[in-house]
């Protein structure tokens, strides 16, 4: 066991390599032509181009929001590429024909597509820079009636479904970054589980930013029809670069009657170096709509990467008796900043939500939980329980808790509790007395602190998450 830990400690940002792929880049800058270019490159239908242009026009009227508790130099939206794709190769007949360079990239990331297909039974849609590279396990999924493909493919093959649900949870008018994403989104994943189907395997998307000076703007859309259920995993990495790169994704989830969607994220974008230079700006809009009665949406996230994380995976509890859950671990070290949390909007009767947030702050990092629980007048019998705990490691870091609770129905029961403290001296002493080093002891205590959230992750991710924590906090103690 200690060898494993040693290996992890020795490791720096292991995903910081950069693959030398022949990349097709759009010129830098953002204007209507770029939007048209992206749409044309992808051979999109007219309605989608119009939607993009409407989003772009709306984007021009917006100002970048400044209310979050994060600080960064202004982002120059004209100084990046909005389209970067590996140069197209002839249509692939099978995964074996995938560009060996890309294969090597994903192998380094530990997601060998072939291996995955044969052994783990996890279907992966891998997205490199802007374009979905390969989707595994398609045939087996198709047998069950599940559609799992890249967004572009979905637009081609299932335009009616995409058109029906695109923007129905996060419209392009939603916020600054959602508008930007709607205008220039490059690819993403689409997943549709028809009525009554329990998805036979865990679905997974792997995102990677490879090219320099690019932004990644992907869109994920997951629809679970009546009685369907799905568990979806998302992982992210990026190479080490000195400049900051923007990642502004949109994720939309829709659950109809009795459907359930479980969405898990392990986010490990490049966080920048120890002095806070470089790293990803992760400004993401994630929202689910429990549209049907007795539906359930559950977000689980482990946020260890990114220079700045700014996201609030939310649930709109519209159907009666619907359930929303949010489990989060956010770790910030060095100069990382995180402003993350959730929104639970209770509309239907007897809707229930649970929020469990664990923030860990070390070094010079600032970690903020920001959450809203809103019980509307119609939400009779609504119930919410929120707990957010913060752990501070070192005197220079900060942990902030900014909850909002707004209740307009007297039958609602809402509880919020939070605590902030450093690692207990007595706990550390106890472990050290038994021969653990301070670092091992800290790691153990931190893992215990996060346990309730890790328990919500699918098994293989839980192991990865614990390892990530260990690596993230390396050097933060003592």
């Amino acid at each position, binding site marked *: 066991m200690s060898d494993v830990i040693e290996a992890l400690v020795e490791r720096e940002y292991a995903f910081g390599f950069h693959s030398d792929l022949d990349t097709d880049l759009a010129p830098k800058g953002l204007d209507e032509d770029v939007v048209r270019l992206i749409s044309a490159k992808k051979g999109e239908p007219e309605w989608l181009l119009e939607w993009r242009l409407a989003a772009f026009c709306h984007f021009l009227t917006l100002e970048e929001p400044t209310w979050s508790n994060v600080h960064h130099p202004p982002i120059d939206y004209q100084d990046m590429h909005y389209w970067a794709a590996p140069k197209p190769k002839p249509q692939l007949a099978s995964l074996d024909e995938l560009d060996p360079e890309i294969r090597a990239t994903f192998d380094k990331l530990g997601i060998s597509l072939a291996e995955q297909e044969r052994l783990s039974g996890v279907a992966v849609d891998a997205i490199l820079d802007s374009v979905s590279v390969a989707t595994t396990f398609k045939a087996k999924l198709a047998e069950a009636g599940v559609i799992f493909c890249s967004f572009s493919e979905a637009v081609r093959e299932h335009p009616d479904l995409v058109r029906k649900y695109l923007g129905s949870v996060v419209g392009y008018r939603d916020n600054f970054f959602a508008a930007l994403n709607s205008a220039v989104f490059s690819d993403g994943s689409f997943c549709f589980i028809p009525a009554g189907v329990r998805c036979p395997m865990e679905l997974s998307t792997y995102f990677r930013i490879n090219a320099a000076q690019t932004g990644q703007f992907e869109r994920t859309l997951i629809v679970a029809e009546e009685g369907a259920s799905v568990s979806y995993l998302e992982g992210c990495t990026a190479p080490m670069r000195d400049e900051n790169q923007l990642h502004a994704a949109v994720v939309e989830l829709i659950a109809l009657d009795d459907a359930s969607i479980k969405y898990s994220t392990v986010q490990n974008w490049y966080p920048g170096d120890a002095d806070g230079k470089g790293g990803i700006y992760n400004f993401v809009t994630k929202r689910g709509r429990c549209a049907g009665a007795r539906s359930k949406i559950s977000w689980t996230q482990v946020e260890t990467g990114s220079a700045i994380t700014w996201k609030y995976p939310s649930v709109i509890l519209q159907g009666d008796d619907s359930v929303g859950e949010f489990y989060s671990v956010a770790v910030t070290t060095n100069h990382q900043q995180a402003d993350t949390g959730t929104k639970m909007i209770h509309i239907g009767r007897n809707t229930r939500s649970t929020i469990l947030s664990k923030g860990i702050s070390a070094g010079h990092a600032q970690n903020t939980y920001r959450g809203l629980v809103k019980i509307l007048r119609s939400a009779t019998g609504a119930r919410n329980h929120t707990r957010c705990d913060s752990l501070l490691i070192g005197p220079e870091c900060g942990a902030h808790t900014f909850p909002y609770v707004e209740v307009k129905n007297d039958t609602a029961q809402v509880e919020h509790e939070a*605590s*902030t403290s450093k690692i207990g001296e007595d706990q550390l002493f106890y472990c050290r007395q038994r021969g653990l080093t301070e670092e091992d002891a800290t790691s153990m205590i931190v893992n215990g602190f996060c346990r309730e959230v890790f328990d919500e992750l699918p098994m293989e991710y839980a192991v990865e998450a614990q390892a990530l924590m260990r690596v993230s906090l390396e050097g933060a103690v003592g």
Partner: protein
Amino acid sequence: MKAADGSVMDYPSTKEEAWRYTPVDEIVSRLAAAATMPATGTSVSRQVVDALAGDHGGPRLVFVNGVYDADLSDHDNVPAGLWCGLADLSHGRAAANVALAGIDWAVDGFLARNHADGHDSAVVVVDPGVRIDVPVHVVHVSAPDNTGERADSATISHPRTIIDVGSGSRIALIQTYCGLDGRAVTNASTTIRVGRHAEVDHCRVQTESTAATHIGHTRIEQEEGSRLRMISVTIGGDIARNAIDVHLHGPDAQTELVGVNVTTGRQRHDTVVTVDHAASRCASTQRFTGVIDDHGRGSFSGEIIVRPGTVATDAHQSNRNLVLSPNAEADTRPWLQILADDVRCTHGATVGRLDDDALFYLRSRGIPLDEARTMLIGAFIRDVTDAIPHPSLRTHVAAIIAASNGMVATDPERMR
């Protein structure tokens, strides 16, 4: 709006976090209307003051519509070591305090306005090393005249209170904002400086008419080893804001803030509390309770700030809300901003209605519904009312809460 130092200061907007739940626009327009054409004031008798504010045994300064009334005040029984009176009376330390208080921290347009257009200021100065046993009572009565052609307009007052407690002293203070029926706008500012190892027990009771607008700001500066306990009771006002800003400048200071707001009709109450830990080894607690009925809206925004470099901070905050009607609204925003690691901070917030099981239990024992309700509401706010150290004030406040909240008469012994 010009601040006292001449700089221009705007009214806040609801986009600012601290004003998110305050209907600022309405307050500003009422303030402007009242300033252009104030209502005629009416005179107030001693009996009225006694009934509205109570008589709690110590010296009493009474202001009617912002103006000091010597006849209504009790100024004969001031103990040695205590000075209280008007700012313009020539007392060296009083004058110095007025000059100092609030020049550099008039943080918003309302305070700037208070400082600039201020009416008579009440000043309380306690010499170092003095223990005052009787409470000092500062009463502000708004008394609009409800007859005549200006009956629909509002009186306006900018009460200001400056309290300076010397090192090692101990004092109890009561501040009452009360009023006759009718429209009034009160824009109040209070500054309390608690010297080294001094101890202050402060009760702030706001029972103005339900047509009144009240903007209250209390700034507290605490030095090393000082202790402050503040109990605030907000019952009156159509729109009422109660802001409390505590700054812990010296190490080992302790603060206990307790409060209740009782909202009925269409009242909107907003409590905004900030405790700023700028020194080490300080301890603070906030316990705020809201009882919201009818179409009322009760909002609580609490914030604990722990500055970098401080150690051994202990800070706690809780906000409990009881929602009694389907049309009532409760907002709570318990915030923590922690910039040091040697802390123990917790906060909790709840919103709920009366416990059905508890009601059933009482009714099954033959207690009528309305009386059972009264008992449970009474129990919910007991934590706050029992914290009031002066028995006469405790009774006074309990009676007003009972009346405003449609509580039925119960045997007081059973309520206790």
